[in-house]
């Protein structure tokens, strides 16, 4: 979150807890939505570029007949993508950098990256 949170972690805790009471914190902008499919145990495209410090959604659609698991320790996301289904993964706000993910059930082929670019240079979604 914002820099003031880092300066005052305790305040952030209380603010965070009070946010729980709200249904969903209202966002001024619609978060960017990115798409990816799983086909033949590969992610297509295998990389997305998102802006830093922004919340985005990644919709992963599994076109294979077998289940897959989107797994990323750096992104701290672990989500099963049942066969023929699509799932939404909420990402961010993230710092600029490169975050690897895999399809845990077919790790040799199902690999990808989320590239997070500083806000100024990221493509507008």
């Amino acid at each position: 979150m914002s820099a003031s949170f880092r300066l005052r972690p305790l305040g952030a805790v209380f603010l965070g807890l009070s946010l729980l009471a709200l249904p969903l914190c209202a966002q001024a902008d619609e978060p960017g939505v990115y798409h990816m499919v799983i086909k033949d145990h590969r992610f297509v495209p295998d990389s997305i570029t998102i802006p830093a410090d922004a919340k985005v959604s990644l919709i992963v659609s599994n076109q294979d007949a077998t289940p897959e698991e989107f797994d990323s320790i750096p992104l701290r996301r672990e989500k099963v993508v049942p066969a023929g289904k699509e799932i939404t993964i909420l990402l961010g706000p993230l710092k600029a950098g490169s975050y690897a993910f895999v399809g845990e059930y077919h790790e040799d082929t199902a690999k990808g990256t989320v590239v997070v670019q500083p806000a100024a240079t990221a493509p507008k979604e």
Partner: protein
Amino acid sequence: MLATAIIVFREVLEMAVVVGVVLAAAEGAPGRNRWVAYGLLGGFGGAGLVAAFAGTISDAAAGMGQEYFNTAILAFAAGLIGWTVIWMRQHGREMAAKLKETGRAVAAGESPLHMLAVVVGLAVLREGSEAVLFVYGIALSQPESALDIAAGVALGLAGGGLIGAFLYLGLLRISARHLFSVTSLLLTLLASGMAAQAAGYLVAAGTLPALIDPLWDSSWLMAQDGIAGRVLSVLIGYQERPSAMQALFYAGTLGGILLASRQSNRRSWKPAS
């Protein structure tokens, strides 16, 4: 076969750590093996059910069903462990006295230790369902023969079970005087790690803010996807890149359990041997 073995091993490893700690914590409790077996059986049955309904769970709660499902299981397991540890600490003296009097542990009815069977069941259900989904996928796409798959599953189960057995036997090498303190501390850390993991799922679902993300990055020191990293992530809740929210949940659970059992801590546990 090897791919199957590796995936099954990973999932089994995580449940084996939980089972190993529970077995050691309940060492000497009557009927322990029976209720742990019930927990395992129930967990495997549940894992099959969860895998079968993976699509339904995934679509629930506006697509965040998996996150909430995992949160609920982890929070429930953490709560059960916390409650058991507090009870163990508060009744440590009585348990010790009874051990001395009768030469055996308290009657099963008086001890909530068998609640840990539910914890075993939940761990198996959560990790097992992922293994079941994977094996189902392999069986469906048939890149391997049924025999190869079976051999891979057996190898993975054996490998994971071996680590759990090492953990259990290693804990039993601790003298009886310290076993209770060590296992109750391990259970406390296990519960704290589960609470932090639950917080991670709530952050993933967008319900909680991450606050500071990540709070630190210790992947250079200990990678979370290695065997040691995986064991530690279950055992003490190690995370190479936790969010501040997870750290808060970890500290809150740890502090809460320690505080709740503080009074009894003063009446120190005196083992019978």
